[in-house]
């Protein structure tokens, strides 16, 4: 099985502050990774580097076979990122936002319309798809952001707290879009290890200084220890 993500000694600084230091990781295609750690551990920075949105400060980074940052163009369009921002324009409707994204990703209009309707149905937003984003609740925006993330059927999903703002029904609805399986590789940042670990193949725990405190098979990580790690107790 080929490697979807390969990191060797990844480092990233923001001015004087080190966000990530010496991060090593290998994730095979189709595997699911959970990234744990306290606030400020560099989890979001790690996802943004993998998404080609941030340049690595040092070390080697390969995503979907592309060496970053030099070959980032090879990976773009094959990655779906769900971050803290929904990346949706407030003055456009959900459908208009998704059509815009579809055109950016080169989807033909008929195929795009079909896919958009399918996704909106999937997340229970079919009837609110023509409402402007500014008029929707945070949970509804998150459902649309998940549609945007998977619209172009990416090979690699990078998910930062995907359950944010979702109610129980919403969490179940989006699970079929961003859950494990389907041959997709997933990297999931979460503060809810009990829910994420059973679906994952591998787990890494970052400490408060952006270093890997633990890297192991997901099944080997005790959920109680994982919970402590997200609270910052990694010693």
């Amino acid at each position, binding site marked *: 099985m080929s490697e979807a993500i390969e990191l060797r000694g990844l480092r990233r600084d923001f001015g004087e502050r080190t966000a990530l230091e010496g991060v090593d990781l290998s994730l095979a295609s189709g595997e699911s990774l959970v990234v744990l750690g306290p606030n400020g551990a560099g989890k979001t920075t790690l996802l943004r580097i993998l*998404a*080609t*949105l*941030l*340049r690595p400060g040092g070390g080697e980074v390969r995503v979907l076979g592309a060496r970053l940052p030099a070959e980032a*163009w090879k990976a*773009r*369009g*094959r*990655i779906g*990122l769900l*971050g803290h*921002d*929904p*990346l*949706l*324009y*407030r*003055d*456009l409707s959900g459908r*208009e936002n998704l059509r*815009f*994204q579809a*055109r*950016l*990703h*080169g989807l033909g209009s008929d195929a795009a319309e079909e896919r958009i309707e399918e996704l909106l149905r999937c997340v229970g937003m079919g009837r609110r798809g023509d409402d402007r984003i500014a008029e929707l609740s945070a949970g509804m925006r998150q459902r649309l952001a998940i549609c*945007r993330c998977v619209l172009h059927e990416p090979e690699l999903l990078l998910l930062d707290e995907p359950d944010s703002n979702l109610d129980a029904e919403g969490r179940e609805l989006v699970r079929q879009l961003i859950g494990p399986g389907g041959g997709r590789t997933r990297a999931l940042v979460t503060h809810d290890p009990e829910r994420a670990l059973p679906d994952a193949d591998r787990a890494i725990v970052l400490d408060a200084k952006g270093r890997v405190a633990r890297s192991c098979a997901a099944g080997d990580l005790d959920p109680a220890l994982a919970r402590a790690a997200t609270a910052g107790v990694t010693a």
Partner: protein
Amino acid sequence: MTASRLAFGAILGKDLRAELRTLQSLPAMALFAVTTFVIFRFGLDRTQLSGSLAAGVLWATLLFAAILGVNRLFVAEREEGGFDAIRLAPIDRSALFAAKAAAMVVYLVAIELVVVPVFALFFLDSAAPLPPLALVLALADVGLAATGTLISSMAVNSRARDLLTPLVLLPLVVPLSIAATGALEPLLTVGGPGYHRFGTWLATLGLYDLVFLLVGYAVFDFLLED
């Protein structure tokens, strides 16, 4: 259709749709320009302007009105995550530069359709200069849009973008201003439009447009990097 042309159309369409829906830039630009003409009308205490004074009043008003639009050009991308969405797509980032510059040209043409007749009504004795004036403004709009898009994309990440944009943009458009007013001066002279060195000034405007479109195309990808 290539991916970049599709992206260009998507970004331009998105910007125009959002502007038509919210009217955040165009009314402010048009109102600013018309108000400025009213102030000049009473400040100068004249019912007719001619030559360099007419050219200066028209160009300075359009330039400052344009800055209002330039300031807001990338606000949605900055505040609503559009930069990230576009950077994640497999497209040439210069499509964003081209689409934003095209949107700015559309805004400028739209306000000129309103404010140039107002200028003619306030300060000109005939409408004869308007057809050649439209040609000068069309060329000046392209240069202003290209330079404005470039500066706006850099300033939008700064908290002081409202201050930074005019501070950086105005010196850069000095050559454009000289050429635009140089071309407008004989057109707006009382007694009918003249064409003294008109071709030279148009060529200068065209050259300025070409240089800044090429600079934008060359550096925009770099400007979008973190």
